[in-house]
């Protein structure tokens, strides 16, 4: 069995029948009628309701927890605290995961779980929570990452020593790591520049904002097996991490993914799931836990806040000669922000030769950050693309032309060492320049901005299997979670390869006992990677169809060809046989040979990077600082759009999420270190009327490593959003904002300062 699809057999001339069309999604009807089952929709006989007690303090030693009064509440069946979790050293990956699920030595952020109750009713569980007495010794806290770096800041973990320092230090600190990312010689580059711009920027955490809160049902059986139903982007990763923190074998934990009501990276790590398992173990009954929105805001990961400086230099004729960054990433209470994506991606899309970036990751008393589309990249691109715009203005060059002049092309070796294959950045920029939007006049009183973005795109461990029913219909089992409708695209690729109608193919999302390991759905890997294994499955099945047809006709295998869902004689001399459809073959041979099946497990490589450019028109109310986005176009390379409407949905969704991040979304903490806006009322995600129609232009520069040429499209759409909006606002009011979100009070202050 191959570990990668050695030969994609990508053929630009291939006559595609299914790929590139827009069939109705197989999971669509259930979702619009409400029949689809999400994390909170599972019910088991005898099921209990679990609730979590959370710390109101951002930083406090937990001296004792007294649950006796809570245990006496009628209906309460089990209570779990830190004492029920296996001891795991702090400062290890598993040690930090277990401390995210349940506080141990200290409560480390407002909302940190300290105990949980399971009871026969939700009301009894809630009442019991009020009776749990926790004795806290309150410690000084620190919320802001720059404050957390100061020498007198409260130290949050005694085990952190900054990695990557020139001279290692044994002093405890809140800075987990320093990273230098560089190529060429920036000093030389700046010396060659005619214009140099240096600006400071900052951004606040934003929440992934999935509509479905985390929800699960856990059942711990008497013989020590766990069944877990939950909404997750990563059933296999949940299983293996649960195995690590609960000290159980993976094979004893079966995770069944539900439909997902949004994840965007936020459901790559678990929250209530291990707690529900332990509550079930103690109560000997299934336990359901569903977080409230307040808990989602206080207890689950937002994205990294940042503070940073960008410096770039350009020659008069538009060659960018040097690019420098000094970046601080807030990771929440534990390391794991994936901040290295920032330096690796922030300038990648340009052919820069001289780059120097110094990055720091810092802990503070907030929930550990979690992934969000292109983790740690969009908030830095906000600054980078702002500086590029300023360079363009200063040398009097069209902003897209400056980007074109410096665009990376095939063969460029990036700052992280990858030599780029065929990529579509130039084509994307050109398509943007040619778009009706870019060619139209900017309306009076509005500003137009553009910004570009990049994402690596990913592959990774992927397993699928394909089963052909005796009537010739096809089922596929996948384990890489469908978080955004990838199912239909995967069914389409299988149908295309098999030469059959997509309606003959159905996909089941496997539980973890049913398939080999699949990596998390993240990094724009799913449609790409699962497409690889499914095409491999289909090719294996086709080999078997050919073999069986040859047997039926009693001819050599190479006398049979498979085309358009049928086996035919390879030529007139083979004999006069009627073509055999899949159903003809399976009907005749399943009984004698068994079912036609295939499975594939690969570590998929060869993901082609994605590039996009956004064009935004914005109007700012100069008396209130409110921004209206009046027109928005996303131009992006998809390699090949398998299901163009799905691709368009990804482009639009990224832009909409970025609009929220750009204009209003932020976490507001009080002096007491408590989150003050833990609701959708006060955490201002955009509503429908806040966003214009997002127009899309799908560029298709194929990635030949994939049978159909596709690139992932999940991350790039959010990457340039805030930068493009910032540039539009800057052009509208004459001053480019440097702080996210660009909320009305901040813009009004900029306007007032400009006027005085």
């Amino acid at each position: 069995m191959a570990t990668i699809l050695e030969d994609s057999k990508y053929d630009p001339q291939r006559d595609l029948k299914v790929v590139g069309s827009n069939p109705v999604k197989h999971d669509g009807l259930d979702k619009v009628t409400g029949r689809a089952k999400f994390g909170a929709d599972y019910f088991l006989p005898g099921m209990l309701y679990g609730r979590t007690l959370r710390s109101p303090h951002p930083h406090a030693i937990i001296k004792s927890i007294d649950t006796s009064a809570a245990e006496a509440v009628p209906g309460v069946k089990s209570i779990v605290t830190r004492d029920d979790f296996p001891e795991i050293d702090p400062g290890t990956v598993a040690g930090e995961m277990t401390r995210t699920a349940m506080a141990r030595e200290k409560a480390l952020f407002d909302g940190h779980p300290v105990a949980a109750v399971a009871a026969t009713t939700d009301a009894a569980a809630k009442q019991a929570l009020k009776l749990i007495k926790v004795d806290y010794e309150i410690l000084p806290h620190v919320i802001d990452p720059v404050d957390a770096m100061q020498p007198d800041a409260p130290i949050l973990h005694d085990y952190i020593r900054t990695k990557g320092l020139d001279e290692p230090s044994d002093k405890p600190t809140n800075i987990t790591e320093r990273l230098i990312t560089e190529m060429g010689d920036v000093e030389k580059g700046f010396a060659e520049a005619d214009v140099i711009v240096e600006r400071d920027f900052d951004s606040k955490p934003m929440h992934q904002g999935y509509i479905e809160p985390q929800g699960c049902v856990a059942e711990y059986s008497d013989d020590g097996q766990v069944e877990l139903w939950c909404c997750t982007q990563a059933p296999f990763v949940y299983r293996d991490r649960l195995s690590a923190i609960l000290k159980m074998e993976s094979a004893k934990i079966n995770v069944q993914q539900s439909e997902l009501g949004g994840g965007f990276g936020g459901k790559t790590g678990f929250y209530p799931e291990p707690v529900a398992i332990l509550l079930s173990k103690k109560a000997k009954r299934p336990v359901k836990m569903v977080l409230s929105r307040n808990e989602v805001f206080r207890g689950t990961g937002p994205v990294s806040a940042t503070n940073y400086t960008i410096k770039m230099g350009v020659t008069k004729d538009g060659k960018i000669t040097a690019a420098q960054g000094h970046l601080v990433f807030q990771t929440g209470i534990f390391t794991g922000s994936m901040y290295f994506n920032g330096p690796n991606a922030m300038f990648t899309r340009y052919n820069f030769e001289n780059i120097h970036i110094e990055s720091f990751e810092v802990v503070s008393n907030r929930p550990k950050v979690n992934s969000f589309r292109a983790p740690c990249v969009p908030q830095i691109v906000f600054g980078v693309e702002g500086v590029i715009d300023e360079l363009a203005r200063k040398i009097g060059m069209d902003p897209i032309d400056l980007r074109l002049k410096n665009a990376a092309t095939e063969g460029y070796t990036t700052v992280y060492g990858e030599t780029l294959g065929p990529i579509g950045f130039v084509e994307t920029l050109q398509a943007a320049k040619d778009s009706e939007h870019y060619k139209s006049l900017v309306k009076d009183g509005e500003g137009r901005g553009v910004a570009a973005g990049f994402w690596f795109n990913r592959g990774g461990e992927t397993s699928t299997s394909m089963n052909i029913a005796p009537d010739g219909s096809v089922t596929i089992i996948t384990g890489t979670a469908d978080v955004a409708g990838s199912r239909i695209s995967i069914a389409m690729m299988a149908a295309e390869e098999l030469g059959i109608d997509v309606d003959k193919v159905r996909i089941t999302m496997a539980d973890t006992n049913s398939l080999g390991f699949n990596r998390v759905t993240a990094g724009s890997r799913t449609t790409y990677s699962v497409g690889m294994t499914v095409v491999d499955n289909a090719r294996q099945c086709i080999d078997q169809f050919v073999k069986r047809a040859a047997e039926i006709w009693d001819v050599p295998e190479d006398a049979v060809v498979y085309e358009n869902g049928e086996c035919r004689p390879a030529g007139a001399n083979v004999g006069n046989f009627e073509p055999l459809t899949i159903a003809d073959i399976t009907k005749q041979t399943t009984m004698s040979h068994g079912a036609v099946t295939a499975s594939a497990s690969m570590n998929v490589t060869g993901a082609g990077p994605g590039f996009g450019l956004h064009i935004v028109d914005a109007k700012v109310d100069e008396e209130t600082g409110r921004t209206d986005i009046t027109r928005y176009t996303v131009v992006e390379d998809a390699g090949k759009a398998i299901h163009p409407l799905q691709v368009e949905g990804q482009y639009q969704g990224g832009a909409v999420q970025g609009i929220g991040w750009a204009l209003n979304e932020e976490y507001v903490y009080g002096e007491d270190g408590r989150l003050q806006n833990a609701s959708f009322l006060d955490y201002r995600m955009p509503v429908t009327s806040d966003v214009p129609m997002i127009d899309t232009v799908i560029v298709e520069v194929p990635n030949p490593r994939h049978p159909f040429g596709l690139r992932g499209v999940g991350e790039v759409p959010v990457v340039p959003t805030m930068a493009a909006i910032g540039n539009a606002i800057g052009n509208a009011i004459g001053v480019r904002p440097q702080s996210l979100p660009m909320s009305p009070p901040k813009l009004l202050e900029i306007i007032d300062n400009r006027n005085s």
Partner: protein
Amino acid sequence: MTELRYEAPESLDGAVTLLSGGGGGKILAGGTDVLVQLHTEMIEPDVIVDIKNIPELKRLSEDGGAWTVGAAVSGMNIIDNDAFQTAWPGVCEGVALIGSIQVKGRASIGGNLCNASPAADSVPAIIAAGAIANIVGPGGSREEPVENIVTGPGQTSLAQGELIVSFSFPAKQANSGDCYLRLTPRTEMDIAIVGAGVNLTLDDDGTCIAARISIGAVAPTPLLVEDAANALIGTKVNDAALDAMVEAVRAACNPISDKRGTREYRIKTAGVIARRAALKALERAQAN
């Protein structure tokens, strides 16, 4: 765990009796504040008294140009009434801003007022309109100008056992017009950072002879700003008069800085929004 009792009396007497007995009774109109507060355990009442089955509270009627709006009439019923919409477009603007269509299918102006949020959207418009609250309670009935109802965040001047039955709007004067505008970061489903209701009457020359200006979300209660009204009365509502009005509005503001907006930002924009509302009210007065 205490049991939560639900009562739905069909008469005012019945409601007053339930509310007066023993305390702990919570009035439920549309429930768009009450149910949220129940779910988040901000309130834990013993008995919920649903007032929607009492005919007087659901009546919307006009008599000689004077409107009576039952305290529990839903927002959609108010704004869908064309005649009321023509008489009081500003009040309807305030009501229309309460949540979504679904929320307004339930939400009432009685609830909006008695929830006593400084940012309630219909309240400045109703105050500017000069509406009177008709109240019943254990001691009988009484009338109170709407600006006297809210005494602080979550606090009203209603006594134990009292409820608002309806609001009386004065007959609309010739050459008068009203308007309510608010500022929110989002277009919808947001809480006012500032709100302003303005109601103006002009004489035949276009001189302002009466004005009421009320601002919301900039102090612990919605404010009726007499100095702001006086800045317009006797003028043609020209720029100088509007500047003076804006100054008076800003002087009256006493907001907090919170997650929804800073003090400075609220004071600054209160003037901006009041001016825009005054100009719109003026336009309507001139057209009437």
